[in-house]
């Protein structure tokens, strides 16, 4: 029906009188100098331009708004909810802490039975890493997983950002020590930073140990023949490091040991606060009244007339001589 109406209407209009081209072309006209209200373009043209302008402006504004919201949301999400770093604490309990970009704890989980036992009754999510670390090590002392005979902690920071990982490692070192000193405990800290790797994660997950411990074990296996994963997994970090020390394995390429390692078997000089039993230098302003012990063999042969700068270096040297675990260059 519509088509019939169209055909009929079209045919009717075609039969109406139309002006011919000749009539239009032959009629004389006077060229106008300006538009009059009949021919003026402004109203419609401006309106159109304005509309197009508005359309593009609106579209651009909408896109900008969308992009802002998208990136803002993404930024908010990445800052708060995306995993930025993972920290593995290994004593014998193995505990994994994941944090966001702001170093706030997203999740804490025990990787072995002991780890899960330590976490019982604690909720770390949403706390700062510092707060969680202090609480966690307080709990390990309370549950006797850290004590005088077993005080070695492997601290592994896994992050894509190596600089951030190094800073975290340093901060954690401090927080752990402070937490333990509050509980009258001490610890020997072995640290490492690791770049995230899917293979390592999968293997560690399947073995039920932390990535940090797996890397430590693999490093030892490369240097000590005859070791097997099965035999080493149940060992605590203390036991692993003792084994490495006894077998002469050099782990210095991958691991760092804090420089104020305190070996209780070495008697401290009464005036010495933090040098691991290093005899005071006569030039040390802090405690010049305390005489040096020139005959002390524990100082690894350090001359007694070193100044303060040299003293800081001597700590490393002494540590190297004592533990035989790590080779720290001066």
């Amino acid at each position, binding site marked *: *029906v*519509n088509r*019939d*109406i*169209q*055909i*009929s*209407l*079209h*045919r*009717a*209009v*075609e*039969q*109406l*009188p*139309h*002006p011919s*081209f000749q*009539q*239009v*072309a032959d*009629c004389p*006209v*006077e*060229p*106008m100098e*300006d*538009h*009059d*209200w*009949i*021919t*003026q*373009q402004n109203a*419609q*043209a401006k*309106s*159109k*331009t304005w509309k197009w302008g508005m359309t593009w402006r609106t579209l651009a504004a909408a896109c900008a708004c969308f992009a802002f919201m998208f990136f803002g949301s993404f930024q908010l999400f990445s800052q708060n909810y995306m995993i930025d770093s993972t920290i593995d604490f290994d004593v014998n309990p193995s505990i994994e802490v994941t944090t966001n970009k702001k170093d706030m704890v997203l999740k804490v989980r025990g990787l072995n039975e002991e780890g899960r036992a330590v976490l019982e009754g604690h909720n770390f999510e949403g706390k700062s890493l510092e707060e969680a670390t202090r609480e966690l090590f307080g709990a390990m002392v309370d549950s006797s997983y850290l004590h005088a005979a077993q005080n070695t902690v492997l601290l592994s920071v896994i992050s894509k950002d190596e600089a951030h990982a190094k800073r975290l490692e340093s901060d954690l070192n401090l927080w752990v020590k402070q937490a333990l000193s509050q509980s009258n405990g001490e610890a020997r800290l072995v640290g490492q930073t690791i770049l995230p790797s899917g293979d390592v994660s999968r293997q560690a997950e399947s073995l039920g140990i932390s990535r940090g411990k797996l890397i430590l074990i693999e490093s030892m296996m490369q240097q000590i023949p005859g070791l097997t994963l099965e035999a080493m997994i149940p060992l605590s970090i203390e036991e692993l490091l003792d084994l490495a020390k006894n077998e002469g394995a050099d782990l210095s390429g991958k691991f760092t040991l804090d420089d104020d390692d305190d070996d209780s078997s070495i008697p401290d000089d009464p005036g010495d606060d933090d040098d691991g039993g290093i005899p005071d230098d006569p030039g040390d302003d802090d405690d010049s009244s305390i005489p040096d012990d020139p005959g002390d063999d524990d100082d690894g042969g350090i001359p007694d007339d070193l100044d303060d700068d040299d003293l800081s270096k001597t700590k490393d040297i002494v540590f190297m001589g004592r533990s035989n675990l790590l080779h720290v260059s001066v």
Partner: protein
Amino acid sequence: MLFVAVVGNTPKNYRTQIKLDESLFVRIGQNDKDALEELYHKTERALYAYVLSLVRSTHDTYDLVQETYLKIRASAQLYRPQGKPMAWIFTIAKNLSISHLRRQAELAGGAEADFENNLEYSYVSDPTDRMVLAATLNKLSGEEREIILLHLVAGLRHREIAEDLDIPLSTALSRYHRGLKKLRKHLMEQEVIL
């Protein structure tokens, strides 16, 4: 009355898009007759349908279409290309039509023209075609007439009509369907179509 479709005389060039080069106006402003002829052949049908929808008189449409082309010739050199040449032509035609209708209303002293019994439809030979044209011009609103005639007679696409008349596409579509429905209903009541 039975609606009889005359096969073999279907509208040609239906749904042909009017692609006007705006430089035509520059050439027309320089008295280029070929440019004027090209403009005339490309736009006459649409212009005629548009003016007819406004004034509903074939005689007036004839005069106003001619006057529109003369106005274009006189002002073509003043045209500023803005991407809508057909809209400018429609603007001139509409302004001329408004002016004409005002004058006519003043002359008639407020009395409305009798479009129902317009003898001008006698140009149309087929009685059915005549009735369809009369119904289109007399039973539809001005807005509906514009769209129906521009789409069904001039073959403009709805989008073109919307752009040229500066109305949203959805408005053009709804006016078209509303007008066509009204027209169909009237023609069925009059038994022009079954």
